[in-house]
């Protein structure tokens, strides 16, 4: 089984348990897999970050979980458990109910995720009326409470505002309010702070942390920024060319990254305390189906040697860590 070993004792029952998940282009011959052998586990209140460059399969993995892939892609999985129940084979109707009630999304661009011709209030109450069957007045009262909860000042006035009348930070808060409307157990956030300034980003991250504490929300956070990962804590999955290449508790991974790709990503991060590696990572992420055999990173890896052409598995290293690199050493 490829499920990464859990860092914490398996006290809390998992909300989500996934193994052997692949995303492929429907009907492609030869088969073309964009995500391969993805696995993760999330319990209430936990945070899991997905990190990697553009085109590594982070967003596709997250979209595949609740069945939100575009029609030309298909998902297969060994195991896809939600609260212990297999949801891999659910019909669209049931999946929609799951998404409405249990799993919510926040996307990167607050402006393009909101409908420009509807007021914020209409967009939040729409969700409540559809999934919760609330009446007009009750939905409005709930929307007001949600905006207040996510720290929108003067929420009664904002209900009547259109998206363009709000600042970027307020728009992202409104989107988070919308995502929370049906009290989800899992929030999937896809680069929600990438379009924001650093100080707004810090505010949104603090808000998410507070919501997690208050609501016991599980958070799946997609980002390419290790600075953000560091603030989120929890666990990290590093993805490269459609595969999870490293899985570890965040603090341990930042302290001693095990996979050469993780190390290269960390070394190229612009930092205040020193100059970063000027080279970044040479080359670019291979297109699907173009990755070399064996380790997919070996073309760009400074440590590559003959053995790297052999198939690589996500190998447990102890202390809740695993890496898809035969050169990675087990931690004490």
């Amino acid at each position, binding site marked *: 089984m490829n499920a990464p070993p859990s860092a914490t004792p398996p006290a809390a029952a998992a909300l989500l348990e996934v193994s052997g998940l692949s995303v492929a282009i429907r009907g492609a011959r030869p088969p073309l897999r964009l995500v391969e052998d993805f696995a993760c586990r999330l319990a209430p*209140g*936990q*945070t899991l970050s997905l990190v990697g*460059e*553009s085109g590594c399969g982070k967003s596709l993995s997250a979209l595949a979980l609740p069945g939100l892939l575009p029609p030309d892609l298909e998902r297969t999985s060994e195991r896809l458990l939600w609260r212990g129940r297999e949801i891999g084979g659910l019909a669209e109707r049931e999946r929609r109910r799951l998404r409405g009630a249990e799993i919510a999304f926040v996307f990167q661009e607050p402006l393009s995720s909101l409908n420009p011709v509807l007021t914020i209030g209409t967009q939040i109450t729409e969700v409540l009326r559809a999934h919760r069957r609330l009446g007009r007045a009750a939905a409005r009262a709930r929307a007001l409470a949600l905006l207040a909860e996510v720290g929108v000042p003067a929420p009664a006035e904002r209900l009547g505002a259109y998206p363009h009348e709000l600042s*970027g930070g307020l728009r992202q808060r409104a989107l988070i309010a919308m995502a929370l409307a049906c009290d989800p157990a899992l929030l999937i956030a896809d680069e929600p702070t990438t379009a924001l*300034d*650093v*100080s*707004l*980003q*810090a505010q949104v*991250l*603090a808000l998410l*942390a507070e919501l*997690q504490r208050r609501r016991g929300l599980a*958070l799946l956070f997609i980002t*390419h*920024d*290790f*600075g*953000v990962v*560091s*603030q*989120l*804590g*929890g666990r990290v999955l590093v993805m490269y060319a459609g595969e999870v290449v490293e899985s570890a508790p*965040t*603090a341990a991974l*930042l*302290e001693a990254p095990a996979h050469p790709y993780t190390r*290269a*990503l*960390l070394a*190229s*991060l*612009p*930092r*205040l305390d020193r*100059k*970063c*590696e*000027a*080279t*970044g*990572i040479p080359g*670019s992420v291979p297109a699907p189906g173009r990755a070399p055999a064996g380790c997919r990173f070996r073309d760009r890896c400074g440590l590559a040697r003959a053995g790297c052409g052999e198939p690589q598995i996500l190998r447990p290293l102890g202390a809740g860590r695993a890496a898809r690199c035969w050169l990675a050493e087990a931690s004490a």
Partner: protein
Amino acid sequence: MSAGGTAAPGAALLELRGLVKRFPGRGRSAVSALRGVDLDLAAGEILGIAGESGCGKTTLARCILGLERPDAGSVRFAGQDLAALDRRALRRLRRRLQMVFQDPYSSLNPRLSAAAIVGEGLAVHGLARGAERARRVAALLERVGLDPGTADRRPREFSGGQRQRIGIARALACGPELLVADEPVSALDVSVQAQILALLEDLRRREGLSVLIISHDLAVLRQLCDRIAVMRQGEFVESGPTAALLAAPRHAYTQALLAAVPRLGGAANPA
């Protein structure tokens, strides 16, 4: 406050004095994007402008390029006052000061080949034609680390980092003395950001190019700037040599900006 206090001795390549730009508000009050900005940039210097959305950084860049006419104050480039130039003179001057944009996805014409994009400035300014233009385009692509063999490809066939290299090659085509780069790496993966920043630094070292780089991310500016000026609501609140400014920020706003930069292993919340 002036950002010119620490300018290198000798004639500045770019000199801004008391720059003011207001945009008339619709019905309501006008917006003051720039409220009296002074700035000196020496030849061969890399200067960073830090600040958040709406602080006036981009308006500043547009005034420097002569795309926006300031309401008061002056922009002098190589001793010439931009306001005193007629259209033709301004156009000639623009060859010497070029822009690199934030988003390499939207700032390249998707219908043109890399060669056409990079060579457009040479054509517009009548600097080279035919085989000579092709030869210079190939040299430009090579200079920014792209394979000249890819010159016929369209932007969508390039990665984000390669597209930003095309944007830089386009800016270099007419032999500028100053590049103004507005958030040149914020749309790129970290693995590529470092390469683009290194390229800008390399161009300065090898060719003495001056760079004015605008970013909301102090960690990015830290990588290559000699000096940083921090902008807030249309004014500089603090400026100084990079190391000194980051080590001991004096203004509360600079301190707040620094505190907001995510650090590895810092302030992680329990999850």
